[in-house]
């Protein structure tokens, strides 16, 4: 079966986020970018499904500027077979991303679509569910286990206070949570091989989607900074302060 994986180019998770002085957004100039960590888990899951003989082909898609091809190449180095780049320099919000992915899904007809549960920049946690709704597919969000069984997939989900397993008809959408797997690193030979794998580029207009944003960001501010507190001399003083000053125990 064919598996489609969507990946997003975001700020590297180790980089300190700095708000621009004019409060229009976060400063991304000359900042290290990488594949969103939850998307790495999505790619890894698809590769494991292929290694088990469940998936026959892995198509990776990314929406974004020219440079997003780096993240597609990373996914190809990890084991995806070919890439689709929806190239745009515009800001693409969740609903519009879901519409673009719907168009790709209609063309590719995958049995399973795997996405990260959210990206670590906008933290929306929307695109997978929106794609599922637009295509009439079932969804297994926040997945910690994915087991394909004939025409169904069982997804164990990380929910508040425990785990929940659902059975979904295929085709279906899965969004990944942290426990699903631990992504591998790409080997140098695979990185070299990935350069020769096919990568097709399309525009939102080719897919017939208007990506004009519905939400406008009025301002972006740094959170209120925490002040460093006091150093205590020993554990007894610490417990005394927690009990009598902070009153939290």
């Amino acid at each position, binding site marked *: 079966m064919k598996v489609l994986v969507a990946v997003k180019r975001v700020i590297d998770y*180790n980089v300190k986020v700095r708000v621009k002085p004019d409060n229009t957004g*976060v400063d991304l100039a000359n900042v290290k970018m990488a594949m969103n*960590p*939850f998307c790495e888990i999505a790619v890894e899951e698809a590769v494991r499904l292929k290694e088990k003989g469940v998936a026959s082909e892995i198509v990776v898609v990314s929406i974004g500027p020219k440079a997003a091809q780096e993240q597609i190449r990373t996914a190809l180095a990890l084991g995806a077979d070919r890439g689709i780049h929806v190239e745009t320099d515009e800001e693409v919000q969740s609903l519009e991303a879901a519409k673009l992915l719907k168009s790709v899904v209609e063309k590719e007809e995958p049995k399973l679509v795997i996405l990260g549960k959210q990206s670590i920049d906008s933290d929306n946690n929307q695109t997978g*569910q929106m794609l599922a709704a637009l295509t009439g597919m079932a969804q297994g969000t926040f997945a910690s286990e994915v087991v394909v069984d004939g025409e169904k997939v069982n997804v164990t989900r990380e929910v508040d206070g425990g785990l929940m397993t*659902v059975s979904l008809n295929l085709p279906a959408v899965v969004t990944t949570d942290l426990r699903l797997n631990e992504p591998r690193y790409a080997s140098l030979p695979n990185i070299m091989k990935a350069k020769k794998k096919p990568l097709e580029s399309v525009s939102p207009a080719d897919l017939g989607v208007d990506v004009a944003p519905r939400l406008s960001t009025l301002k972006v501010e740094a959170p209120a900074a925490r002040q460093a507190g006091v150093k205590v001399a020993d554990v*007894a003083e610490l417990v005394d302060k*927690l009990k009598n000053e902070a009153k939290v125990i």
Partner: protein
Amino acid sequence: MSILVIAEHDNSSLKQATLNVVAAAKAIGGDIDVLVAGENCGAVAEAAAKAEGVNKVLVADNAAYGHFLGENLGELVAEVGKGYSHILAAAGTTGKDFMPRVAALLDVAQVSDIIRVESEDTFVRPIYAGNAIATVKASDSIKVITVRPTGFDPVAAEGGSAAVEQLDVVKDAGISAFVSEQKAESDRPDLASAGVVISGGRGMQNGDNFKMLEQVADLLGAAVGASRAAVDAGFVPNDMQVGQTGKIVAPQLYVAVGISGAIQHLAGMSDSKVIVAINKDEEAPIFQVADYGLVADLFEAVPQLEEELKKVL
């Protein structure tokens, strides 16, 4: 304006997060209706009717909603919600699951995880795991919003007397089914909602040493977390991770033990009310955000902490 709040519950009791969401709805202003969708959830509807500020409670009681499957709830809420100006739900795992489906079915954007209301169409939400705070304006005719419960003080659970109306709308998409659930077995509270969290970092040296933290956690009724460094080193499983790529926590008390304070960890816990850091390196960045810092060897300090707590608790 009219606002539809989707109740969070377990078919027998109303979750407090619903009261926080009603508070967010009050901040927007307008009539507030609450939709209780579930199976045999009459007690929940009665509780919702008593909440302060609720105009009307709508009940969709059907097996299709018993396990809160996103496919079915999405269709129901899109159908019931299309007559409202705002649709709100708590940003827990249930709301996060079905609300984007509602937004997509209504062809409107969703505003996720708001912590403040500026006006009827403008909301404040954390981005980059709380490293930046964005003010966003929604232009669609229906605003679909998930609310971070800790951002709003709950309305009173008692005192209201809203009318309860049964809905005869059954939406069963028929493409998904509940199989099983496994509640967290630990007696300790859930990491994301615990009032006290004690976390260990690379300084713990191995997974066995986390038992020291568990003993302190049991005294405090705390959840046990870890930094990404401790997870990457294989000390503890990934679901204990606090940070930008793990769980975001905001407890009353956060105790960081042997954690240096990498950016990605701070992003997950710096909204905690009181932060305690125990680390032998006095230059560790964690001390820059800690209310109380103790420069000490954790292998001496944590057992002492356990003893001192036993004296005062």
